[in-house]
């Protein structure tokens, strides 16, 4: 029983961070229909930002999200303005090439600037935990989960309640119709990519105290983000949140009850099952 509860808690907590990565990707896809293969690399940039804010200025990784979010927003917006906006109408493979290329440029520039050394962020709570009735709840994961919840809730509110949020959603639903209604879709795209990038950067910041940082760290997370997003339904924020938590829990349970090298098999089996039953993903609506 302890094992079950322990795995469940760990799974949900790590799933929170996964969700954040997935949400960023899903917003970008929703608004622009561009699959951002540089997503993990953007996350990596956020990780380096966190690392240097911590080592140079002594800002705690969890506090540094206050700096990371706006900076990464600007970074994402610039990427969108300079590059992505130009290929919105292009063939999908060209869009994929562009984002992969941007990702490669990011990871290799980081390698040139900071070498390929692993950077490890050590905080006083990096390996500590809360104890609850025989269970241990990782302190850094618990805090990052709370931050994820706050950010997701705020983002959801922004998209649902504000005019700008509605404009973003309108653009996501039908770009041309939105444009005809007088929405500046180019601006919405910049906003969406900015939000996506800041979500990825935040996820990077939140995972930094327990993980490690190196220029190639992104690719693994790009794949994960992609699976989460497809599982939840491309473009759906609730779907990505759900997808993230499901993947977190399945990984954790798979490792506990089957074996750690089979956990990805379990993840992908469930992934395929969901797609078989519901090809548009858990919360997705099918589009043509």
């Amino acid at each position, binding site marked *: 029983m302890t094992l079950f509860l322990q*795995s469940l808690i760990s799974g949900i907590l790590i799933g929170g961070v996964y969700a954040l990565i997935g949400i960023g990707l899903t917003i970008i896809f929703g608004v622009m229909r561009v699959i951002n293969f540089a997503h993990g690399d953007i996350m990596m940039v956020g990780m380096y930002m966190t690392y240097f804010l911590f080592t140079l200025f002594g800002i705690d990784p969890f506090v540094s999200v206050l700096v990371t979010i706006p900076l990464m927003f600007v970074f994402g917006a610039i990427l969108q303005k300079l590059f992505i906006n130009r290929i919105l109408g292009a063939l999908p493979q060209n869009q994929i090439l562009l984002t992969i290329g941007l990702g490669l440029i990011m990871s290799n520039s980081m*390698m040139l600037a900071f070498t390929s050394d*692993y950077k490890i962020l050590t905080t006083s709570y990096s*390996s500590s935990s809360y104890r609850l009735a025989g269970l241990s709840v990782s302190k850094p994961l618990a805090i990052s989960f709370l931050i994820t919840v706050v950010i997701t809730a705020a983002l959801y509110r922004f998209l649902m309640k504000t005019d700008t949020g509605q404009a973003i959603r309108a653009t996501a639903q039908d770009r041309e119709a939105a444009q005809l209604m007088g929405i500046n879709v180019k601006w919405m795209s910049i906003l969406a990519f900015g939000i996506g990038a800041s979500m990825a950067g935040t996820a990077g910041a939140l995972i930094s105290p327990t993980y490690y940082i190196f220029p190639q760290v992104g690719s693994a997370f790009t794949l994960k983000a992609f699976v989460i997003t497809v599982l939840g339904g491309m473009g759906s924020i609730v779907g990505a949140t759900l997808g993230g938590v499901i993947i977190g829990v399945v990984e*954790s349970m798979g490792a*506990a009850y089957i074996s*750690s090298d089979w956990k990805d098999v379990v993840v992908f089996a469930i992934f395929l099952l969901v797609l078989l039953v519901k090809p548009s993903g858990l919360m997705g609506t099918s589009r043509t």
Partner: protein
Amino acid sequence: MKKIALAALALTLAVPGVSLAAKVKIGFINTITGAEAPIGENLTNGVTMALEDLKKKGIDVELIKEDDTGKPEKSLSAFEKLATRDNVAGVVGPYTSACANAVASQADRYKVPQVIPAAAKEEITRKGYKYVFRLNAPADVYSSVLMDAIMTVDKPKTIAYVYANTDFGISTVKTAKEYARKLGIREVADEKYLKGAPDFRSTLTKIKTLKPDLVFMVSYEVDAITLMRQSREIRLTPKAFLGAGAGFTTAQFLAQKMISNLVFSSTQWTEDVNWPGARNFYNRYKAKFGKEPSYHAACAYEAMIIMAETAAKNGGNREKTRAGLKSGQWNGIMGEVKFSDYAGYTNQNNHPMLVQQVQNGRYETVYPAKFATKNPIYPFKW
């Protein structure tokens, strides 16, 4: 007087191999980019220092570096290029087991002598390849030396294995299991993990419920830190944590004081071992590169020295170089080196591995007794 000097000079120039101007072409396959790059950098630096020292001895090496990014197929094409297009006298590398294993199969085909500095997979020198030489101890020693060290202080009953799902991890644990069985230690868990995974908590919790005496881990680089951090989080407390190789022997691991204390690890080399020049190598490396060398750096250094000296002595002739490696004997920063055939191995240096333990923020050599600087501290506590 002048005449004699001139005659001496002419003589040295005339005799191939002793010539001062000998320039020998050596290939070096390493992981310069990719996930293994941080360890690859240690090998690169080790080789850089070797070239300096060789130059002082009058051996001028034309080094051709190839990056395999840690992928066997790239390693193979790099090796083919070195063998056919660059016409090197010999090859040092590659670093990882998977790459070295792939390349070893081609060394005999192209008849190019190869010195493997730090790859541990046993098969590499078990297939009877004539042109493949290995300096470091193979994977079975990583585990046996650790258990031998523990057996000097206790009789543990159970063991759990947690290891990276890589060639190195799998082959190390396979032999660890055989050795543990021989010692009568029962296996309670066998957990492979995907390299770079961010979350091991449920795996570790599962192991905690099984209460093993020993937890045996094989990890590259920073996975070791993630594993130990999460072990501390859930308070997994065996009598000893045994770390075989790579990730448990780095300066970065050592710097994580909260989680590295009292962890045992096996290593090919330490700076405090009494092999000639080991301490000096450490000091020079640190001064030159601003960081501490891992054992890989020492392995690569010695491998390059051995390969270049032998190749230079034989005028870059591949066949003679192979014979020279086979019959030669060296004594440098890796202790005594001789490539011999034993226990199913061919051209394998029977290198004595060391066990070190983190004590008060330092790696201390604790086993074998003749190389030890401190006694092991046992059992483990957080």
